[in-house]
């Protein structure tokens, strides 16, 4: 089966995120109120052939650990769609 997988890779908490700050500032100056804690990272969409959703998730995790995220600076989250 083919699963559509969504990966989010986000700068680790505590790490300065100047891009997030810039976006937050820009949203403020466009008049959006009540916006905070903006973080900007990468969204990666991919299809994975796997026997089950769990297997697809495990594969995605392995991909994040090896390539998609840098453990020094980034955390990741994975969502598997049917």
């Amino acid at each position, binding site marked *: 089966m083919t699963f559509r997988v969504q990966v989010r890779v986000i700068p680790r908490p505590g*790490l*300065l995120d*100047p*891009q997030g700050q810039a976006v937050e500032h820009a949203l403020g100056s466009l008049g959006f109120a009540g916006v905070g804690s903006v973080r900007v990272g*990468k969204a990666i969409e991919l299809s994975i052939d796997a026997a089950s959703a769990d297997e697809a998730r495990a594969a995605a995790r392995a991909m994040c650990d090896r*390539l998609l995220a*840098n453990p020094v*600076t980034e955390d990741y989250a994975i969502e598997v769609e049917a």
Partner: protein
Amino acid sequence: MSARVAVVRFPGSNCEDETLAAVERAGAAGVLLDYRATSLDGADAVLLPGGFSYGDYLRSGAIARFAPVMDAVRAHADAGGVVIGICNGFQIACEAGLLPGALLRNAQQRFTSRPVDVRIERADTVCTTRFTVGDVIRIPVAHGEGRYVADADTLDRLEGDGLVVMRYVQEDGADAPHNPNGSARDIAGICNAAGNVVGFMPHPERLADAVLGSDAGHRIFTSLVDRLGAAVSA
């Protein structure tokens, strides 16, 4: 016999020609090494040059670190051999775990190409012996992802163990921010604990020939060649 320095060309590298020229001007034999190579072809030192390996897609250096040649580079470094990463090469060295930390997008979110003033913080690494600690040289940077980051412990260890090799400094009269990318503690370059792996963002190879008005970067390469010469003749 002159020392052999391999300059690796990854797909998307673009500073290999001038890096080879700088190495040869300093008296070593330069060898262009394809990223598919499985050995270093007898080289005494490896230079990972600047450029956009694999387009810098995903993160700079993230894909290049898996190139076939990197096994040989890692083995060379583990055995105490000299590995120097310049700009993209520094990014690759960090991604490959040869150096601690990471290089993130410049704080101002823009690519920055300009001369910077860097102070040499260590005169005993493989590429700085011809300097005196405190020397300031003006050489170019050109990068979009040069903001050095590491966790506080790592930064403290780098400082404590004297592993910061170059730092951005403010020269009198300069009116551009001295730190071009927001690097932690103004770090421009570091080395590993053993001192055989060095990485930095500025490009000494671009200003290593007096014909262009300055050869401020030349001593990086003569230092390297001195060091290799000593090793080769020993």
